């Protein structure tokens, strides 16, 4: 396509070649999808949620299909941040795509230590996961109050020497308050939404489908909720917003950009279509060509109300 089309976006100093990022937890550390397409095509890769020590995760089944959505209850299974740094960063650096480390902890101290460790590692940004619904401690309990978010973010801020993105949960009364707390505490960007807490029951066995009873809903089903939250948060904060939740194609992605997102993440859609990320990038470019838009930044917040 035309060379005049500029897909670059800038998230608080983090320049992305295009606004499409692989969402954390749906893309592992990139290895598996690298057989399907060149990872250098992506604006960025948010890796699987990391914790200080390896985590086993929750008992299976960890997935249930729901109408136009899925519930997952993985529970942050990961090899630990050190294994990530040793084994995965060298692999990911083989591609020309921003590396975003998704970090969780059980305590504020663990969050501090994660940010410190990752600030000394070769990653391009840190996404602080304050929103995982599938673990008992930390995460969601910090993320679901403005005070909790403020505390964690202001404590970790001083350790962060690269863009700090705070990932928000939709399981709150007013997400703009939470976003503002993150901004006030020094976040460079917010990303939203993580999954919405949900549940599935098998009427044959009369048991929950998930081993963990409840899980997090993602996929097209949540798109209208995610879009509304991105719209509200974009108006409420000045820092750039990364939007996600149910994006499956370029039309969905453009909706999020128009609503105010500076970039988008795609997760669940890749399960059905491993080319979802690449096709979304190509589709945004085609939409821009058709509508004579030179820079993707013109779309950001371009909703006419």
């Amino acid at each position, binding site marked *: 396509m035309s060379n005049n089309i500029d897909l670059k976006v800038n998230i608080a100093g983090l320049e992305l070649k295009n606004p499409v990022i692989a969402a954390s937890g*749906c893309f592992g550390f990139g*290895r598996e999808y690298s057989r399907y397409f060149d990872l250098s095509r992506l604006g960025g890769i948010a890796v699987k949620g990391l914790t200080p020590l390896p985590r*086993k995760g929750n008992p*299976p089944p960890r997935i*249930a299909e729901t109408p136009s959505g899925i519930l997952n209850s993985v529970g942050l299974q990961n090899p630990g941040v050190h294994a990530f740094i040793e084994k995965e960063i060298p692999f990911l650096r083989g591609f020309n795509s921003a590396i975003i480390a998704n970090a969780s902890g059980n305590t504020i101290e663990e969050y501090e230590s994660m940010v410190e460790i990752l600030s000394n590692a070769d990653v391009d940004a840190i996404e602080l996961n304050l929103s995982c619904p599938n673990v008992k401690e930390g995460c969601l309990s910090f993320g679901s109050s403005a005070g909790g978010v403020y505390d964690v973010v202001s404590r970790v801020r001083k350790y962060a020497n690269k863009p700090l993105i705070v990932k928000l949960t939709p399981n709150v009364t007013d997400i703009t308050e939470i976003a503002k707390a993150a901004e006030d505490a020094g976040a460079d960007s917010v990303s939203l939404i993580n999954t919405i807490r949900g549940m599935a029951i098998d009427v044959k066995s009369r048991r929950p489908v998930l081993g963990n009873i409840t899980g997090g809903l993602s996929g097209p089903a949540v798109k209208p909720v995610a879009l509304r939250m991105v719209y509200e948060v974009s108006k409420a904060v000045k820092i750039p917003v990364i939007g996600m939740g149910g994006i499956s194609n370029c039309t969905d992605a453009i909706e999020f950009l128009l609503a105010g997102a500076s970039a988008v993440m795609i997760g669940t859609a890749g*399960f*059905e279509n491993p080319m979802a990320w690449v096709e979304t990038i190509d589709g945004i470019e085609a939409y821009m060509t058709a509508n004579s838009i030179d820079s993707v930044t013109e779309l950001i917040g371009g909703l006419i109300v």
Partner: protein
Amino acid sequence: MNTKYKIVKAEHLNSDTFMLTVESEIISKRARSGQIVNIKCGDEGGVLLRRPISICSVDRDKGTFDIVIQIRGKGTKILSKYKAGDEIDIMGPLGQGFSLYPKHKKIIAVGGGIGIFPLLQLLKDHPAENKKVILGFRNKSCVILEEEFKQACNKLFISTDDGSYCDKGLVTDILRKELDKEPADMLFFCGPLAMMKVGVEIAKEYNIPCEVSMEQRMGCGIGACLVCVCKTKNTDDWEYTQVCKKGPVFSGDKIIFD
């Protein structure tokens, strides 16, 4: 990467089971017995996820492979509507297949329910001289692929839960009887968890190596999302391992059945 292939044959084997023959040079060339494919069902009713299905049989000359599917829920119901000539979206072959060691001269493969399907290509490909297979079905009307299995092995045992066809009872009981008659070098299990658990115990008892093919609900199907795990042993602890990538076939002594 292209994931669209043509169905060259679609055939019902019984009231709720059907076979699709799919044309794909690349999958049929690469496929190892025990591996799976991950099939898009179409998004009727908002069904998003692909469904994992075992490769049942491969014709490497013709460049086609067969899958056999039992209608269980929404996804398999949609798949049952496919006809010859239709295009189908398939990722694969995925995962680890069965081990085919020449040193295993005598093998026994044990399958139950939908677990029998991957055993057909295993028997076709395995270099052993003596191949026995023990298949369990619910009842007579469920018995399928009998001729194909007969051709692929030296001895076929069939049992039905209600005794309406051949033997009545558990496949693992038949296995025990056979092992008492004649030893084996390797056992393969694929079927309900309870059956595989007993199978692995028997293998241990008789000191024979074995492999099992695990089932789990899947997301990505390629190892990236960590939803499809089963519990496995590692050096001095245990961990959750992806069935789609590190399995579905595992060494029997790796699995923790609890």
